[in-house]
């Protein structure tokens, strides 16, 4: 379980807030999507959960314990993180990249090797073809699969994903989204997923947190949000793609 209570973050001493008075809770095994346009505070929120950024006010609990009372390095090893820019280490092979967190946790080489092969197969990369390669030899989609495998390596209970599929083409993105849905059922992780893509949010989220300029607009299931948008911003946000879809159908006629 991940819980945020009254969390605020300012980078300029209080003149403006990247995140303001944010509270929500993610139950074990649940996937919550943080949805909003760029600059709305969703990435900052994600980074506060594993202490890459520290909150100015409020409390964040992971597994029932305040993150500020935990050693940051140990905390981060318990939370899988998929980075927006992927961030694979260019001087390490795919095997070394995926096996890194287990290595930091002191797993034996043999156990690491088995785990890496298992995970590469899980994300659809044949270990015998990819394990010894370097990330530069992989396509963007393949790199992101490795990024997901790396986040899952030490079998963390929590997974934070920061626009993992944002930079991919539409076809690859859709394939990876479908695979993530499959993984979600199989792995039973507690996931927080950040995106600006409404369809992605509707597809993946058990619940959706809509953020705008650091403030929460609405928290709820897709049904709740679509049937009863809480603010004009939410209504516009979901109205726009529907209108675009209608326009698109017009063109096809």
């Amino acid at each position, binding site marked *: 379980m991940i819980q945020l209570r009254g969390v605020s973050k300012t980078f300029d001493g209080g003149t403006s807030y990247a995140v303001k008075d944010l509270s929500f809770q993610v139950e074990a095994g649940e996937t919550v999507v943080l949805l909003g346009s760029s600059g709305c505070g969703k990435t900052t929120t994600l980074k506060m959960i594993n202490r890459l950024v520290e909150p100015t006010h409020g409390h964040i609990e992971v597994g029932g314990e305040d993150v500020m009372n935990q050693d940051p390095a140990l905390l981060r090893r318990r939370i899988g993180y998929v*980075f927006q*820019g992927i961030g694979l280490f260019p*001087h*390490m092979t795919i095997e070394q990249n995926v096996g890194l967190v287990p290595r930091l946790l002191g797993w034996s080489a043999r156990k690491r090797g088995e785990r890496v092969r298992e995970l590469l197969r899980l994300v659809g990369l044949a270990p015998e073809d990819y394990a*010894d390669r*370097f990330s530069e*030899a992989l396509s963007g989609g393949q790199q992101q699969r490795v990024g997901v495998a790396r986040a899952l390596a030490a079998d963390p209970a929590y997974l934070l994903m920061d626009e993992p599929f944002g930079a991919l083409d539409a076809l690859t993105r859709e394939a990876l989204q479908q695979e993530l849905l499959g993984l979600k059922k199989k792995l039973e992780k507690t996931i927080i997923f950040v995106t600006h893509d409404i369809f992605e949010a509707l597809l993946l989220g058990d619940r959706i947190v809509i953020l705008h300029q650091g403030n929460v607009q609405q928290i709820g299931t897709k049904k709740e949000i679509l049937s009863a948008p809480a603010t004009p911003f939410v209504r516009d946000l979901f109205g726009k793609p529907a209108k675009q879809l209608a326009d698109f159908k017009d063109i096809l006629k």
Partner: protein
Amino acid sequence: MSAEPWITFVSDHLSELWIRTGEHLILTGFSTISALLIGVPLGILIFRNSWLRGPALGGVGILQTIPSLAMLVFLLALLQKIGVLPAVIALTLYALLPIVRNTFTGLTGVSPQVMEAAKGIGMTEGQQLRMVRLPLATPVIVAGIRTAAVVSVGIATLSAFIGAGGLGQFINRGLALYNTRLILLGAVPAAMLALLVDFAIGSFEWGLRPVRKQDKPGSARAIIRPVALMMPLLLIVIGLFAYFTQPSLGTRPASVSNGGTVTVATKNFTEQLILGELMAQVLEAKTDLNVIRRFNLGGSMICHGALMNGEIDLYAEYTGTGLTAILKAPVIADPEKAFYYVKAAYRKQYDAEWLRPFGFNNTYAITVRTQDAKQYGWHTISDLKEAAPGLKAGFTAEFAERPDGYPGLSKAYGFEFGGIRDLDPSLMYEAVSKGEVDVICAFATDGRIAAYRLTPLKDDLQFFPPYHAAPVVREAVLAEHPEVEQALSLLEGILDDQTMQQLNFEVDAKKRDAGRVASEFLKKKGVI
């Protein structure tokens, strides 16, 4: 210019070339390694502590701007030692800037996305540095080491100036003897060595790169990789091997005067080399002592300093130099009085003994082209008075500064020359003969006075102190080996001005070997 063909010249010097190359590699190798051991941690330190950046980068930058010779002489004074140690320290200080700067730049240049990932997956600060930052910065750091090593090869040629050996020894000797071949014998291998060092570190960097999938065990790359990694080490091993295979030629700090060795030194010009050979050969012929030659040290102060530290046992000094430059005493015009003054003062202050002089007086001689002397009727220095403002003078830097040099001369004679150019002693004679300057401060016994058709003018006011050369020996050596004094006494009064000029001429103009010229002379005189 010389009778000897190139091939014979090089093959004659082959064994020495081998050992000098070895010394050069050792100077470069050890200084680069110590710069690496200091520079990389310093680079990491300033990366982590931003307040240190300005001072540290500024500091190593300033080191870089100190002229190499000034740095060597400064370290010499500080360490009270000649030889390899001050040279390696100087080279290390020069090598710091590229290594520190590249380490810092390399660490800073790692992509922030990669570093955020390193932090985000749970690496500690130390792990981020060790597992991610340093490996990714390595190519840039190695590039800095490469620059440092190549620059070191160049600067190491100057180390010969303070007796550290290396290929600079040939260059120094070539400059002293005005022998282009000797200069090239040092300069060309030094340039090739620079390319070799560059290549070796380049291969090392290639060998460090991550193993690619195509580098399967057994492939050509997999075999070359360890070889490439070993290249710099190989060069150092070759250097050490060369250094220790021919110890008789080496310039290691000798364990002085115990176990029956005596170390003879010289300054870096022709006459000194001949005198050094004369003394060394007499000692070899008449005593059982093992003679070590540490020739071509870069000047009076370096020789004197080395004598005081016991790193050398004897060298030939000139009374005038001892009097004014070393003892800082006023000029004494009378040769006998001057000699006894320095003898007494050295005994009292330096525990060193002046033996009887060789005979000739190598004083400064204000010298002009013979053609000009005839045309204008110049015989004495006073004759120049009227023409002086229109004359260009070429002086050695030492002469231009010393109280018994130009400053005193112009005061005593009451005139100044129109312009002064600082010239190297080895270039002075040619410069005046070609008309680039009109007057030089020649040495009275220099063979090139005759060779370049020059005329020394008479010092009619007896301004210049006498410069009679004599062996100066540490008292401890004389006490332990009285035979040294006996042997050297055979050289007393053996050379007059003309004879010295003739010997200098043989070496300077005819490009003959100083050792051979000295042994011929000693045999002719029946000394050995």
